[in-house]
């Protein structure tokens, strides 16, 4: 590989040039919402990147303390990472359940796994689609959206909502699966691998795409760990760490699946292509999990364990789960007598992953920064909780 050498030149020596400050965002098409990047550039080469956050701040954590009960926090959690709402709900609900000591029926656990994995596929589709867009390829973006629509259809028949679900409740689910869910799920499982192959042909193995992403934004494993990166960011650097395997929750320990890690197949371990490809392979693994879960799913009541009023005993808990973007954690303090949380703090994966951006983008070009930022896969709702 490596037809093109990495550009890490800067104008040194005889040629004297001035640096220029360039504001990328908050309205820039590649900053995925409302991130502002202050770039110090030498020509097109990046000398420094300073992310400025806070344009979307919705005070979610403060709001959670103002609710009248724990259940009402769930719609707020949805809105944090609005392209992976199921994952957020799951982590929050599991935290509260653990604090209250509720044991939920098996059927609920299986449905939660199916939903979380479908959500992972949907979220990764959006990530790789918009990544193509960042690099100037428009078509993969719409092809990925087409596939994502099918998942959203499944969510819609299940809980009536396409983006923000309020589906996973404390102690159960808002609805059981509808009768035609199985058929539609099987249709999806059958057509998706073909669609994935098309996207791979169009984007993943495209020579230009590889040249744009391989050896770019290399994140070494130790740096990733030091910065607290998680999810595909961490695994792209070759660290095999996934909470579904390392700290299994729900019924994840009953399924067989792999944890894809970056192997440096097209360049260096931990480059943009690796992070991208980890996502592609995670979608395949999620398909495996869904297939197995659907085969094993037992019958039962999804409302059995829902408490009349959630009022956890006095105490505190930190629970973490694997979201598409990485480790999402909820730290909840209960004072024991009121029915709303005393304090909720979310550990958002995008926020932590974004913090490594200045570290990995110096010395590359502006076009590379777009590629690097895209491979971090941020959702600003989560960065500015």
């Amino acid at each position: 590989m490596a037809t093109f050498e990495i550009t890490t030149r800067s104008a040194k020596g005889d040629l004297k040039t001035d640096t220029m400050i360039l504001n990328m965002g908050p309205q820039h098409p590649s900053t995925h919402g409302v991130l502002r990047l202050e770039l110090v550039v030498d020509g097109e080469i990046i000398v420094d990147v300073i992310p400025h956050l806070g344009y979307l701040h919705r005070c979610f954590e403060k709001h959670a303390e103002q609710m009248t009960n724990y259940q009402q926090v769930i719609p707020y959690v949805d809105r944090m990472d609005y392209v992976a709402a199921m994952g957020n709900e799951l982590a929050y609900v599991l935290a509260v359940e653990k604090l209250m000591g509720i044991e939920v029926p098996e059927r609920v656990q299986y449905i939660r796994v199916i939903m979380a994995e479908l959500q992972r596929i949907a979220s990764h589709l959006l990530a790789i689609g918009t990544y193509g867009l960042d690099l100037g390829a428009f078509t993969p973006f719409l092809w990925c959206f087409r596939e994502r629509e099918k998942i959203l259809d499944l969510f819609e028949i299940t809980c009536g909502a396409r983006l923000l679900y309020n589906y996973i409740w404390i102690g159960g689910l808002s609805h059981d699966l509808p009768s035609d869910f199985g058929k539609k799920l099987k249709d999806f499982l059958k057509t998706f691998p073909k669609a994935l192959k098309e996207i791979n042909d169009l984007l993943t193995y495209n020579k230009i795409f590889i040249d744009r992403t391989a050896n770019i934004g290399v994140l070494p494993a130790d740096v990733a760990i030091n910065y607290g990166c998680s999810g595909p960011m961490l695994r792209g650097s070759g660290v095999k760490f996934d909470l579904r395997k390392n700290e299994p929750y729900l019924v994840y320990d009953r399924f067989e699946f792999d944890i894809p890690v970056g192997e440096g197949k097209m360049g260096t371990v931990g480059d943009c292509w690796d992070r991208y490809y980890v996502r592609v392979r995670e979608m395949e693994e999620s398909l495996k999990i869904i297939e197995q879960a659907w085969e094993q799913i037992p019958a039962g009541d999804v409302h059995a364990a829902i408490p009349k009023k959630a009022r956890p005993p006095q105490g505190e808990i930190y629970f973490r789960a694997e979201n598409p973007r990485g480790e999402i954690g909820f730290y909840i303090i209960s004072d024991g007598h009121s029915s709303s949380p005393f304090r909720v703090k979310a550990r958002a994966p995008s926020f932590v992953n974004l913090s490594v951006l200045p570290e990995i983008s110096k010395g590359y070009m502006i076009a590379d920064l777009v590629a690097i930022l895209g491979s971090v896969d941020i959702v600003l709702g989560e960065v500015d909780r």
Partner: protein
Amino acid sequence: MAELLNMLVASVIPLLFILVYAIVILWTEIKVASHVQDRLGYMYTGGFHGWAQPIADLLKLLSKEHITPANSDKILFILAPVIVFAASYAAYAALPFTSTFIAANLNVGVFYIIAITSFVVIGILMAGWSSNNKYSLLGAMRSVAQIVSYEIPTALSILTVVIVVGTLNLQEVCEAQKGGLFNWNIFKYPPFMFIAFLIYFVASLAEVNRTPFDIPEAESELVAGYHTEYTGMKFAMFYLAEYANMFLVSGIAAILFFGGWNSPFGEFMSGPAWGVFWFVSKGLFFVFLQIMLRWTLPRLRVDQLMYVSWKVLTPISFVNIMIVGLWAILK
């Protein structure tokens, strides 16, 4: 008086062609993109597949406000889109639409086109510089680097054709390819003329800023590059120039390598009227190819683009021109 009328007719025909073609190709581009991307595209305005939408877009652009940034260089800012369009429009003068119509039958037609199209760079540079916007400036600098670099492989592959036919007059280039498919330049000196065509096609994509070489515009990196600050009709001029350029390079490809206005079946379906048909459809075919490429490929990075030009296309076209030259001498 008659001469004046002649000049008027000769200059209005290409202009009319550009305008009609731009509207049609705007519609085509959206429809092709929609089919590639599994969506519908224009469907409502005017009935059948939204055929009137580009006309409505044009009217909208005409009525939009002209915004000039406060600290811009106003004269250059207004002049830039005009120069960009004028350069590509002027190149149409030497394009033989058929055996009887060519606005200016220059005996240095090839040279004229190469020279006049390089004006586009000046226009883009003016636009980028005068906008007083860092993104525009970066886009303009990229564009200069790109177009100037790619003119070399383009010119070299055009020169190969000049060696083969022995004339710089585009009308004569067409004449030389008379008599059916296998007299076309693309089939001469196999496979070296084909290589020359490939180099020309790739380089011409860069010349007209189309994907994968749409680096001056680069909407995901530079917002909209050199035309970020342009609105309304001034913006539309850049767009019109882009589409005019697309057909220009495609038309030149058709003339140099694919027989121009000649019928592929020898005498069958030939003549001045058929000539227009053959020339325009050959040109549109390459425009279609450019559109398809745009919706398939990601964008290269600036330095990769330079790499492709200086280290891949230019050396290959030098070797190619030498081989063709030797072959032509020995023959």
